[in-house]
């Protein structure tokens, strides 16, 4: 071996070593990045549980807020408001969402199918605060007041993309043989869709609803100028007053959705900015309730969808 060749061989060994070193360093960096991203998750979840755990008691869920400076009281008004908003948004989002998903699942390649999928994607990307603006101009301006109804519509628009996408995905997972069997027995398309496809996919579709609800529950921005917030919201009082005045059910329901309502994230936002320590303390409690609700739905829904996919795909 000449000196020259020896040098090259040495150089190659060094080069190989360097390549292996780069490989090891970069690969472990990717693992480190993953750990780094998990730090805020555990930090937030842990800290919120720690701070919020001190605040939560029975009164927190069952009482209205006390006047400023008085400790105690709860956030019943915003729990009720959140329920009202959730029910309204489901009413507005689920029927059109599911029907559109039927179209998207059956006709993915027609012009309308492509435009529909594209619109769903766009809708998912529109900032939620812009949805709030839209609903403000659509409902609050003509009605001349903020209302739970407007808040419900804003959340419904936010939920729509999630509902359409998960429903479409679940319908596509239903085996073709079921569909063909039903059509072959002479059932019309609508009957096949509603009494064969829909029940077969129902559990997954409902899981999708829950995912959409979880996301909508955490949203604040679209409610700021639609539902606005209302410290005195009290469903019990409205119902009692309505019954005493002999009003029918629809009038009472109308009164519930026709006034500004509060929701948990709105309350959190307002309380967090106040200089009163007891309010800040309560905002941690709200954060805990909100976070646990959202994370539990998210985890169970995912577990469920995963197991279903595995079963249907064999």
């Amino acid at each position, binding site marked *: 071996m000449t000196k020259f060749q020896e040098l090259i061989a040495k150089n190659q060994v060094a080069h190989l070593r360097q*390549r292996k070193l*780069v490989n090891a360093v970069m*690969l472990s960096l*990717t*693992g*480190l*990045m*993953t750990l780094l*991203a*998990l730090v*805020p*998750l555990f*930090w*937030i*979840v842990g800290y*919120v549980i720690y701070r919020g755990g001190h605040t939560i008691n029975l009164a927190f869920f069952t009482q209205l807020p006390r006047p400023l400076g008085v400790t105690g009281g709860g956030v019943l008004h915003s729990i009720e408001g959140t329920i009202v908003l959730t029910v309204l948004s489901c009413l507005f989002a689920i029927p059109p969402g599911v*029907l*559109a998903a039927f*179209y*998207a699942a*059956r006709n993915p390649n027609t012009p*309308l199918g492509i*435009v*529909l999928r594209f*619109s*769903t994607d*766009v*809708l998912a*990307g*529109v*900032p*939620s*605060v*812009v949805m709030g*603006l*839209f609903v*403000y*101009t*659509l409902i609050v301006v003509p009605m001349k007041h903020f209302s739970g109804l407007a808040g419900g519509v804003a959340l419904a628009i936010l939920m*729509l993309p999630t509902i*359409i996408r998960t429903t479409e995905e679940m319908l596509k997972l239903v085996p073709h043989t079921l569909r063909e069997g039903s059509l072959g027995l002479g059932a*019309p*398309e*609508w*009957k096949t*869709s509603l009494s064969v496809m829909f029940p077969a996919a129902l559990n997954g579709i409902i899981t999708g609803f829950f995912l959409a609800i*979880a996301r909508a529950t*955490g*949203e*604040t*921005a679209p409610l*700021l*100028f639609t539902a606005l917030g209302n410290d005195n919201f009290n469903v019990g009082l409205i119902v009692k007053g309505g019954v005493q005045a002999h009003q029918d059910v629809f009038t009472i329901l109308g009164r519930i959705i026709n006034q500004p309502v509060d929701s948990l994230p709105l309350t959190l*936002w307002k309380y*967090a900015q106040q200089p009163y320590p007891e309010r800040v303390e309560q*905002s941690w409690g709200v*954060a805990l309730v909100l976070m646990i609700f*959202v*994370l539990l739905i998210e*985890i169970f829904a995912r577990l469920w969808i995963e197991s279903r996919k595995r079963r249907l795909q064999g």
Partner: protein
Amino acid sequence: MKIASISSSRSTLDVSLKRATRHGDILWSGLVIVMSLVVVALVLYIGWMLWQQSAEARAKLGWAFVLPTGESTWDPANSVFQAWAFIYGTLITSVFAIILAVPISIGISIFLAELCPEQLRLPLNWMIELLAAIPSVVYGLWGIFVFLPKVVVPIGDGLGALFGDVPALSQVFTGPIPQSGASRLAAAMILTIMIIPTITAITRDVLLAIPNTQREAAMGMGATRWEMIWQVLLPYGLSGILGAVILGLGRALGETMAVTMVIGNSLESSGSLLKPGYTMASLLANEFAEAASTLHTSAMIEIGLTLFVITLILNIIARFLVWQVARRTPQEARA
């Protein structure tokens, strides 16, 4: 006899109705199509409504409203509105968040798609995605009381000391950061955490969609694992990864609550990252419900329109890029 004829006439009516609607299928497909059109129309209607409602501001304020100005004024009392300060705030926080989030997200998705042991993959995927599920007000609350004092202030001090005197960078890193930590840097760092799941999920899917032949060829040539990832997989999935980054940017631009809670909401004339600022979304969150005049409302709706148009364009580009990778892959895998 009579009864029979009635029933037969009823059944002919029934039959003809059934025929006309193909046993109800025409009604069904009509309903389904109408609902799909409603969803499509909704997107158009959002754009149109914002356009129409911002007419007053567009007529009175013109293009100067959204164009860069040296010192922008936002004075509802005297009806002087210039949006540049908010647009600048949105851009600098989002861009800085992207700069921080992209390397981390790509690292995570490489780990999840290529290196992670099978048993860890699902739980890790979920944990990263749970970051996206935490409500943004909770991020804001945690940000104000924990993240800002513990993390952002030391980093801000460090950045200020490091770059505060460097000529080219001093504009962006003029310190000191406020005691509370409320600053554009804080907003950017919270945004970083919030967009990591978005970028990671799509990048991971792009990497997983790359056919195994590419990996085998690279390894067969003697490449190390990292060389395979860096020189083969990443270039192969580049347009999809770019799409993921743009989608992340879209999310960062529109994020409202967490940013509003940590950015300090002040119209500083300084453009520094270490100073409090304002973004388009945080302006809307703070002022819209208490607008002083119709022009004030209209001007803010125009800001909303700007946000809508920007995110719309970004989404279209991103979807196109991601879709291109998805479309190309199976064909090349077959070849």
